[in-house]
């Protein structure tokens, strides 16, 4: 068995294709399924005849539909021709009228079953494709009869429909056809037979059953009049809410299920503008029975009605249900597991309900895309006939997939779809939001609440559809088709746009934005995907497009999007090109890239997913360091070292800077550049270390009279109340508070001056001193010099070190020294990194007060004089 699916484009293309396929008669029976959403009945028959001429021995079955399913895609303006050639099996087809031609009275289901059996069934029938039209009233009983007469035959198919937004009309006008004609009063059946044939079928509804079982107590044709003795329509309206009058489609989300038949769902359509006689003409002979059975019912006045797509019989047990996203996902997962593990998957059939695309705006597209890359073919129907594992049933809102084959063959599926259910979840969230609001509206029938409900409902049902592929499609392209160069496009600051401009204006801008992206991508043959609103991705294959070329194109697109006029809101598009994408790394790389773009304020960024991955060596080192620090804290291995600072006036070392060291288990000593960044990133670690360090230094110097010490403090320490309280307490009790100098790091980001100024003032109050550390490193901010009242200024070593052979560095030292002279504040200047005599000579010549460096003293655990 082999199946080709062909989209109808023109007759000449079609004949070319058939020529290629060489469907000569000797090789087994040929079944041709035509599902068209673009032909009228007579045109469809013409097409069938044309095909019959090309392939004289073909068995043709055709239906009208509102949407075709082909290769995992749903489209509403195509005609799909699926050609299946059997290896050894046989095909039989028949079009069986459902009504007496003369009287117009429907044939009995018994008779129809008999015809089906005689005309198409064989001993080894594996699958019976069955399509009916809506004029046939007894579909439930027909299927029940089939189950009775030939219980081993599995049926698949449904109610033919046509493209129309109004579901009831769409179903009513559906027709079936073959090369001999079309009709809306017939059964079209095709049996697929063969001993080596094997098949499997599964279905998804997504209907979550809620509430108690009810019994239909009165019905009128397809209308349910009462349930458990109460008016069925009123009950339904109350449950679903007040919007049904305006948006009858809303009922799709709230089907009933037959609880006496495996919870198979069926839909009802709510209508408040018709009387029973409007629907069932009293003159029509075939309705005479119904009227005679209901002598008491008011049939002429307009009333609320709920109507199903098939005849309702009294006494059936039903339950309420709603369509639930998680149920859709889990049902689909089950179905996928079943279908994908079937060995003889040579041909896939897929039939879905017309309501499914409307249930949740993304539902049908999402679930069908699981079968992208397979040869799945089928269409939307107004109700589905299928085998539920026990028997054949008729249901609404179901998606059915069947696999059939004579020999083992595997199809390529797209299980990545299951990773991307966000869209469904979002749809569901809206629904939940609506339901919550409904709760409120029951108690308080305020007009504004109703308006809100209306809003939600329209969003849920008519969500704007950009017609662009979704995330799941993108992931599959990345994984299977090598689309590993992805450009993520988003727009900055949508929120602020929303506060200023009208929705219409924003919507117009949005549509223009999408259109531009789309046109550009299509002109360059790139793929375009819609991630979420305003967020678009464009993908290219690394084996077709050079990265530079792709980047250039994206830059061009960005310019185009920037270029705007009065008609649209000016937007700031952000472009991030990611090379070497995989489904796994994409999100994290993109997030990192966005972070970089934000901090650097750039709107176009190119990164490589392979190299921008975090370096695991660095991460491992980081965690090693965390362990070392933790161990040091626990085992008293945070040790201060002291480096002497030489006074150029007294020519003695009288001051020391305390420096933090960490020792590990094996006695190795670590310097701040090894642990400080790690400790800072784990803030709490830093706090503990700092406290231990400060405590030890205090301990060491508390009772020394003629020696002073500097202690490094970060902004974090100053903001840390625990720490500052500790310092204040100490200074308050220390015999010589003037011996303690607190060095504030100049190169740390100081954004909150009040905290620092308060700290500085308090220290001064208590008799301590303040130094500004590392002055001149990084992007120095002279504001610190003005705002912080420090007693010492430390010139950064990077300047001091170079002052001998770099004139600019020397000038800076002169500048600082000159500033000191001009300033009226009492300030001492300290030069770090004084490594040799040459530097020291320079420092002395500029009148620098203190020199610190290897020339005078190296850091040591003891105080060296």
């Amino acid at each position: 068995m082999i199946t080709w699916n062909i989209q109808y484009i023109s007759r000449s293309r079609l004949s070319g294709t058939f020529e290629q396929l060489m469907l000569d008669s000797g090789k087994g029976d040929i079944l041709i399924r035509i599902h068209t959403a673009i032909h009228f009945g007579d045109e469809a028959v013409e097409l069938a005849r044309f095909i019959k001429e090309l392939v004289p021995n073909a068995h043709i079955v055709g239906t009208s539909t509102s949407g075709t399913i082909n290769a995992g895609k749903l489209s509403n303006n195509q005609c799909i021709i699926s050609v299946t050639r059997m290896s050894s099996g046989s095909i039989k087809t028949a079009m069986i009228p459902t009504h007496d031609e003369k009287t117009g009275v429907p044939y009995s289901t018994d008779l129809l079953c008999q015809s089906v059996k005689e005309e198409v069934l064989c001993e080894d029938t594996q699958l019976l494709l069955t399509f009916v039209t809506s004029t046939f009233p007894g579909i439930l009983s027909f299927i029940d009869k089939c189950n009775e007469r030939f219980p081993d035959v599995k049926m698949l198919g449904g109610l033919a429909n046509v493209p129309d937004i109004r579901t009831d009309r769409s179903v009513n006008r559906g027709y079936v056809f073959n090369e001999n004609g079309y009709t809306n009063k017939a059964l079209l059946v095709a049996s697929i037979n063969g001993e080596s044939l094997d098949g499997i079928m599964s279905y998804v509804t997504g209907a979550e059953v809620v509430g108690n079982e009810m019994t239909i107590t009165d019905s009128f044709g397809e209308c349910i009049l009462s349930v458990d003795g109460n008016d069925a329509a009123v009950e339904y309206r109350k449950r679903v809410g007040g919007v049904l009058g305006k948006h009858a489609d809303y009922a799709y989300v709230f089907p009933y299920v037959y609880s006496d038949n495996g919870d198979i769902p069926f839909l009802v359509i709510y209508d408040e503008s018709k009387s029973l006689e409007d629907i069932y003409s009293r003159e029509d002979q075939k309705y005479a029975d119904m009227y005679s059975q209901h002598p008491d019912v008011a049939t002429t006045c307009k009333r609320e009605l709920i109507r199903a797509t098939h005849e309702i019989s009294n006494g059936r047990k039903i339950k309420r249900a709603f369509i639930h996203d998680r149920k859709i996902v889990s049902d689909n997962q089950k179905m996928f597991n079943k279908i994908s593990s079937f060995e003889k998957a040579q041909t896939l059939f897929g039939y879905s309900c017309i309501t499914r695309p409307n249930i949740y705006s993304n539902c049908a597209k999402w679930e069908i895309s699981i079968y992208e890359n397979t040869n799945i073919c089928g269409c939307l129907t107004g109700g589905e006939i299928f085998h539920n594992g026990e028997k054949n049933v008729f249901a609404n809102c179901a998606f059915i997939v069947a696999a059939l084959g004579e020999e083992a063959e595997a199809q390529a599926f797209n299980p990545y779809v299951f990773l991307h259910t966000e869209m469904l979840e979002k749809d569901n969230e809206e629904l939940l939001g609506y339901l919550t609001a409904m709760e409120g509206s029951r108690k308080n029938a305020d007009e504004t609440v109703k308006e809100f409900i209306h809003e939600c409902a329209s969003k849920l049902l008519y969500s704007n559809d950009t017609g662009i592929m979704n995330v799941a499609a993108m992931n599959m392209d990345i994984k299977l088709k090598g689309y590993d160069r992805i450009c993520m496009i988003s727009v900055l600051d949508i929120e602020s746009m929303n506060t200023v401009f009208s929705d219409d204006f924003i919507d117009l801008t949005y549509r223009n934005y999408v259109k531009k992206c789309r046109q550009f991508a299509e002109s360059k043959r790139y793929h375009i995907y819609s991630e979420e609103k305003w967020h678009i991705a464009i993908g290219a294959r690394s084996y077709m497009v050079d990265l530079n070329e792709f980047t250039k194109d994206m830059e061009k697109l960005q310019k185009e999007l920037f270029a705007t006029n009065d008609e649209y809101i000016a937007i700031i598009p952000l472009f991030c090109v990611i090379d070497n994408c995989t489904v796994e790394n994409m999100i994290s790389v993109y997030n990192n890239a966005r972070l970089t773009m934000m901090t650097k304020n750039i709107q176009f960024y190119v990164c490589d997913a392979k190299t921008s991955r975090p370096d695991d060596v660095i991460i491992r080192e980081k965690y090693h360091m965390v362990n070392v620090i933790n161990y040091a804290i626990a085992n008293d291995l945070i040790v201060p070292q002291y480096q002497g600072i030489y006074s150029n006036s007294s020519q003695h070392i009288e001051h020391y800077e305390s420096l933090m060291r960490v020792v590990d288990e094996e006695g190795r000593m670590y310097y701040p550049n090894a642990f400080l960044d790690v400790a800072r990133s784990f803030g709490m670690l830093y706090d503990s270390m700092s406290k231990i360090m400060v405590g030890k230094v205090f301990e060491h110097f508390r009772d020394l009279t003629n020696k002073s010490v500097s202690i490094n403090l970060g902004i974090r320490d100053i903001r840390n109340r625990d720490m500052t309280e500790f310092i204040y307490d100490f200074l308050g009790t220390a015999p010589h508070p003037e011996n303690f100098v607190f060095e504030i790091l100049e190169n740390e980001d100081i954004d909150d001056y009040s905290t620092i100024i308060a700290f500085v003032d308090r220290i001064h109050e208590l008799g301590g001193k303040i130094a500004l550390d590392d002055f001149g490193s990084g992007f120095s901010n002279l504001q610190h010099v003005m705002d912080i009242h420090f007693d010492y200024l430390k010139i950064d070593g990077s300047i001091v070190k170079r002052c001998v052979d770099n004139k600019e560095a020397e000038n800076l030292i002169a500048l600082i020294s000159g500033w000191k002279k001009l300033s009226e504040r009492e300030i001492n200047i300290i030069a770090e990194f004084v490594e040799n005599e040459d530097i020291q000579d320079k420092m002395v010549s500029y009148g620098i007060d203190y020199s610190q460096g290897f020339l005078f003293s190296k850091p040591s655990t003891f105080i060296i004089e």
Partner: protein
Amino acid sequence: MQDTNKDKTIAVIAGNIANEFCRDLVESIRNAIPPTGGINIAVLPGEVLIRGKRTENNWQYDAVFNGIYSLGYQCEIDGIIVFGGSMGWVVDEKDFKEFLDSFKDIPKVVLTSSLEDQITINYDNESGIKEAIDYLVNVNGFTKICMLGGVESNLDAGKRKEIFIKCLEENGLPFREEQYEITNMSTHTEQQAEKLLNNNPGVEAIFCVNDTAAVGLYNVMKSRELIPGEDIMVFGFDNTRMASEMIPSLSSVGADEITLGKKAVQILIDMMNGQEVESAKVKTRLYGRQSLPYEMYQYTNRELLDANEAFIYRMFDDCFYRYKAASIKSSSVNLRRLYFEFISKILKAYKNKYMPYEDYEDVERMVDVFFANGAMEYTDAEKLIDCMSRLQYAINALKGSPAVISMINNLFIRMRDACIREICKTNTAQRNSSFSNIKRMREHLVIGMDYAGDKEKVLLTYIKNLGLEGIENGSLFMFDEPVVREEYEVVTYPDEILLKCIIKDGDVYLTPADRQRKKTKDILKQSFAQSRLESIAVFPVFYERTTYGLLFCELNDKAYNMGGFIASNIGINLRMLLEA
């Protein structure tokens, strides 16, 4: 952004890179650099000193030229690769050792050398030669096989002779000395080839010690109206690009899985990381071409048509054999995957007996992209045509849908067209560029001439127009005072050097006078950081004994073919302009 300060610099003491063998070797080293970067290659090309065979003039020229090698120990570098031939074949082992010792503790790898106390990388000569001889004897039934050998002092030449004799003997063929002629392994081997043909009437196959030596043989055969591959089978060694471009193309023994250069870089990187390493040998095999038709792999039709993923990739690797060894930037078009995509689409269409028109168009586009992105760089035209024909033949031989097959045949025609187009384009471009280059060089000299005689101005004008020499990216350094080589002295350069200008994308940027001065030891590393190039070649700018400076060029085709010439030209011009 990567931190260029952390980048490692490897110097390559290369010999004459205009020579096919050296050039391929340098390329294989360059291709071995991981695409993620972090390693820079500075090629120090020299001249091969062959005493006795060359004139005194040549000898002097080479000695000054090879002063460039001193950069290897004057500059700060992280590793060094030395070609065995870089000092000339006749330099004895002791001199060579002394030369190597001058690089002290820098990790170093020596290619094609027998030195025992060094880490060396050599060809495993035997596997490839044996494959060729066995094929000639066992499949073709040949008995008269000769060899055009090399000087005995060359390690490989000696080994190859030994193996040649051994292989003959293993096949029961005796060896006589008339079957062997010694050449200098250059292209000028006509004399020896004549002798070999005269001494061995009816010779059926000739093994040339390297590809270059086959050039002379080809010339002699042509004059005698003998066609390589038809009248006499010929195969060389080294599998250079030249071999594939000769007419008819030359079969050659070459590296099998990994190239010499790649192995050398691997080992050197290990050494630089402080790991223990050992000398290594690189396996060889025979690459069949027209001069000795030889199927490297036998494909069955079933394999060809099965559309198996692994098999299509293997087909690509066989056909585009240079792609595997090349260092392909991940930002460029992935040709391997592209080949797989369109071949598998074709084969699937054949299998399914159906090809939608969209697919057909898609394959057409893929074919165009494939060739437009330099696919021909990685194969020989002949090899590709051969591979395509075989596939096409297989598809046509079996029954299939005529419509699909006609589509597939159209696609094959498109491939051939694209292939021809690309080759023509490359050839024309090459010819045009070398013509225009010479024209521009002349213009450059004319611009430099200053009839007023202000030497400072002359030099400035000349340097300002350095772009006319045809260097796209590079820089020019000059010494304070030219370095003059004394007789029998090794040239070393002064510790300081002036960076006169930088050339970027053909534009010359003059360096301000106060920022020209650089330390010679830093110039290699700095030039990478400055230019963002990953590989450069450095040429001495000199005339007679006087070296004026150094020319840094981006390592590309132009540098291989013209770099030495351009540098010499600048040297001559400087002498003329400054000292006239």
